[in-house]
């Protein structure tokens, strides 16, 4: 009895189905034990330092500084990099991308599915610990709500950008770290103009807007702070989809 006896009836694949397909595969691919344990341990720093700060009843500015520094500046981008970068990056490195590429489906659902998988795994390891950290600082005054919005928007922005890194660059981890530590860490501090091209400025602006604390490099209005990262993410995924269609696949 051969598979070819009854030709397989086929129907065009709906974009949503294609997104779900990519989402399923990438999600299980990212669920590597080592990675999740390692990054969860990293993310623990945020709540622990928040709790430490809280028990020493620090001021609002200290709390916002802590959340912005460790939460939005370290835990969020690094975790987003590892998962969003690997969403397509691992498939390229392992040479399994052909099993999603050589299909009668467009390129963008594959990219979107992969990004969604990255968000699904990164969210609990970024939003939860950072918001809990804000809670533990006990600084109140809307810091928790501000942190929640900032981390969600930040996650969307970072996942979008780093998915593009994973599609385009072979050593996406190194370039991603360079962006986080060097670009956002040093250069963006230099001037307002340059900072405009760093996601960190937008997440900090959201936090400052909700809490009223004063924080350098955080002077965008809430609307800009929320909308720009999302737009950046959409544009990044569009570029990633174009790139996925036009580059060589091993």
């Amino acid at each position, binding site marked *: 009895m051969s598979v070819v006896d009854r030709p397989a009836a086929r129907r065009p694949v709906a974009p949503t189905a294609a997104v779900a397909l990519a989402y399923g595969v990438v999600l299980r691919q990212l669920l590597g034990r080592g990675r999740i344990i390692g990054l969860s341990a990293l993310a623990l*720093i945020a709540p*622990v330092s928040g*709790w*430490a700060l809280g028990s020493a009843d620090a001021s609002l500015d200290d709390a916002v500084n802590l959340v912005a520094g460790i939460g939005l500046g370290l835990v969020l981008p690094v975790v987003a990099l*590892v998962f969003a970068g690997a969403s397509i990056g691992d498939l390229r490195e392992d040479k399994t991308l052909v099993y999603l590429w050589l299909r009668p489906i467009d390129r963008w659902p594959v990219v979107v599915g992969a990004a969604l998988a990255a968000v699904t795994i990164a969210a609990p390891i970024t939003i939860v610990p950072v918001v809990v950290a804000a809670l533990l600082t006990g600084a109140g005054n809307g810091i928790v709500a501000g942190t929640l919005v900032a981390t969600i928007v930040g996650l969307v922005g970072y996942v979008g950008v780093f998915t593009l890194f994973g599609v385009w660059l072979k050593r996406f981890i190194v370039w991603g*770290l360079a962006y986080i530590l060097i670009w956002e860490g040093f250069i963006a501090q230099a001037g307002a103009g340059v900072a405009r091209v760093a996601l960190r400025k937008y997440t900090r602006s959201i936090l400052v807007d909700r809490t009223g604390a004063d924080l350098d490099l955080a002077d965008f209005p809430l609307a800009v702070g929320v909308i720009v990262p999302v737009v950046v993410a959409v544009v990044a995924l569009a570029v990633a989809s174009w790139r996925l269609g036009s580059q060589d696949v091993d």
Partner: protein
Amino acid sequence: MSGRGDAQIAERGFQRYEGRRSGVAGAVRSVAWESIRSTIGLGRPARYKIFPVIAVVIAYLPAIVFIGIAVLIPGDILEPEEVADYASYYGFIILAIVLFSALVAPEVLVSDRRNGMLAMYLSTPLHRGTYLAAKAIAVASTLGLVTLGPPLLLLVGYTVEGEGPDGIANWLLVLLRIMLAGVAISAPLAALSMAASSLTDRRAFAAIGIVLLILASPILAGALVEGAELSPNWRLLDVSTMPFELVFRIFAQPGNFPELATLPVVLVNVGWVAGGLAVVWWRYSRLVIAR
């Protein structure tokens, strides 16, 4: 045999080797040496030499500077404590040590699993235990390059300048302490970086893991002890400070955390070493080697 390949047989034919074979000891020695060579980039393209060179420069520069000071400024004007003593020297080169420990173990352990060398090694007189021993020696001695070398250079420089410890007995005591200090720092970092390198098959992740562990643990310990005012013993969790704390105790100095007794500091370091090696052994004994 109709095959008329282009394989020419050198007329000399094939010599038999009747000499002595150095057995497992020789195998461990050559694997350790080959790992050291490849980590510091010997016999490899230039780009592999960048990081090791940077690390070594960072590690030895302060020593050279201090010796320079001792040379240029006559002894009487300078009070001894202004010249950095050996124990606090490490404070200057932490970055080099961190950089090196994040670089060495992933290079030495992870690449063998990905490029088929591990399968080859296990078909030689080595087995998993002796292989890991060789790799541990390689990692520790490469780390020794930045943890043992600089203070020794310092000692030699000072001695030549007459600033060194007076009397042979004292000189040997300082030498012994430097050796112990080198081991106190290299052993835990080697064990922990090897553990990280056996948990993931991607070198970049192992390196990130080691760096984050070294950067994160002081923050964690600091938060627990200062923030939450828990007992100072929580400080012992700080994997990147405790080895240096032990160095102070080796040099009979109070160190940064005098409230901690020396014994717990020693024990925690031994604990990190044992724990790291246990993780490595657990992973490698369960590893299925694809022939």
